[in-house]
């Protein structure tokens, strides 16, 4: 099975060379793709020189995480596709191997990486309560928003891509809806920079919006209920941010 590794990246000149060289050492890796979000520090040039295939994010919207992941998937050729943050300071071959092992063994169609820490605020306060309401099977995942993921080409082909922060939870819901197998794997410790609070507020809203939109699509609530819940949530998150 050939593996494609995708690094969505914006201004990651400091880390990208090392991330690519680590990914290259993983057995079965056919290609490394860097999806650049208009970096100004030379990330795409470094990535290209380091042997990655570089494509530029099609839409430069903010947040563009989903755009980068979607473009990376469409640009990839492998049977297994793994998405990794480009700024993981302790990225290792073992880290990547753990993530893709269940796919290689045919034990899963999609793998969520988890880390040896408590799950984040957006996960506990927004994602899990909404998942419990609409997709209770997925509420059992310990870190449903983690960005380190891998899946088969078939699994990603069923995804209706969200373009912003909702992409991670959107992928899980769509793959679950298609009846494919999802597992979590503990990847150990992830050393990277944390996001500031205002960004988390925005992320929380987009995650909620994605879960509710997909629930409405899947006939679990009406459009009116969806809009009402989103409006309440926008109010509450706005209050949290103003404090």
């Amino acid at each position, binding site marked *: 099975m050939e593996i494609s590794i995708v690094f969505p990246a914006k201004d990651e000149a400091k880390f990208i060379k090392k991330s690519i060289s680590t990914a290259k050492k993983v057995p079965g890796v056919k290609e490394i793709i860097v999806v650049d979000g208009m970096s100004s520090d030379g990330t795409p040039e470094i990535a290209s020189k380091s042997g990655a295939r570089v494509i*530029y994010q*099609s839409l430069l919207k903010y947040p563009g995480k989903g755009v980068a992941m979607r*473009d990376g998937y469409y640009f990839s050729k492998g049977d297994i596709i793994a998405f990794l943050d480009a700024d993981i300071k302790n990225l290792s071959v073992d880290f990547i191997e753990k993530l893709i092992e269940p796919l290689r063994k045919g034990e899963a169609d999609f793998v969520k990486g988890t880390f040896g820490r408590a799950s984040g605020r957006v996960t506990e306060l927004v994602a899990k309560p909404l998942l419990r309401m609409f997709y209770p099977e997925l509420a059992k995942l310990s870190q449903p928003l983690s960005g380190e993921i891998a899946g088969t080409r078939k699994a990603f082909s069923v995804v*209706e891509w969200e373009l912003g922060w909702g992409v991670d939870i959107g992928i899980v819901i769509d793959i679950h809806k298609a009846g494919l197998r999802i597992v979590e794997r503990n990847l150990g410790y992830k050393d990277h920079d944390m996001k500031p609070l205002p960004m988390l507020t925005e992320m929380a809203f987009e995650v909620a919006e994605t879960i509710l939109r997909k629930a409405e699509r899947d006939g679990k609530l009406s459009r009116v209920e969806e809009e009402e819940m989103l409006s309440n949530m926008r109010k509450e998150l706005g209050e949290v941010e103003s404090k």
Partner: protein
Amino acid sequence: MRHIVVGSTHFSAFILKAIREADPGGIIYTVERSPEVAEIMSKQINGKAVHGLLTDPATLENAGIKIADTFFALTDSDALNANLVELSKKIYSVPLVVAISNNPENAEILYKSGANYVLSPVENITNEVKSLLSIDRPSLYPLPTNMGVDLIIMRPVNTLGILSTIISMLSNQEDVKDLIALSPSDGKMKNPEETERGDFFVLVVRKISSNEILKKVEELIKKSYKRGN
């Protein structure tokens, strides 16, 4: 002619209309993942709708890709467009394959994937902005590779001085194919003797030497300042 259009962005709606106007009797297939969207698009231009996974050959075969004359990859993902271009050109040998590059940086990838022509709306807009602000700053408009020429556009302050030097360049250099003076108010062509400050000068230059010519024009403008003419 038989056309296939994949993707349902803002641009595809206008491009569909353009295809219909250019080929009123042609058969146009609109291909989208969602059946509703495919239907809405096809209705606009009296075409036929096909839905399904966009990169699945079966979907494209349902739209008659084996006998299509043109194929338009117009999604908002350049990576998906590259995939579609590769399929339509390398597997199905569609004679004319056109792709949109949402981010102009990806145009080369689309050409390499097999596109005959890459539409780059963002590049057109940014070039227009540059030319509006190009008083004494010549800017290069790269045209598609297969056209073999690029444009250099400028709005020199000292028109007669710069014009005489450019005309002398024109007579000496094979690389400069033409020089056109245009009025910015109505876009009409003007005689070189009638040009005034603010007019556009458009140089049609050979693609392989366009960067070199651009540098020469920049130097000429600097020299004309030094001479004070």
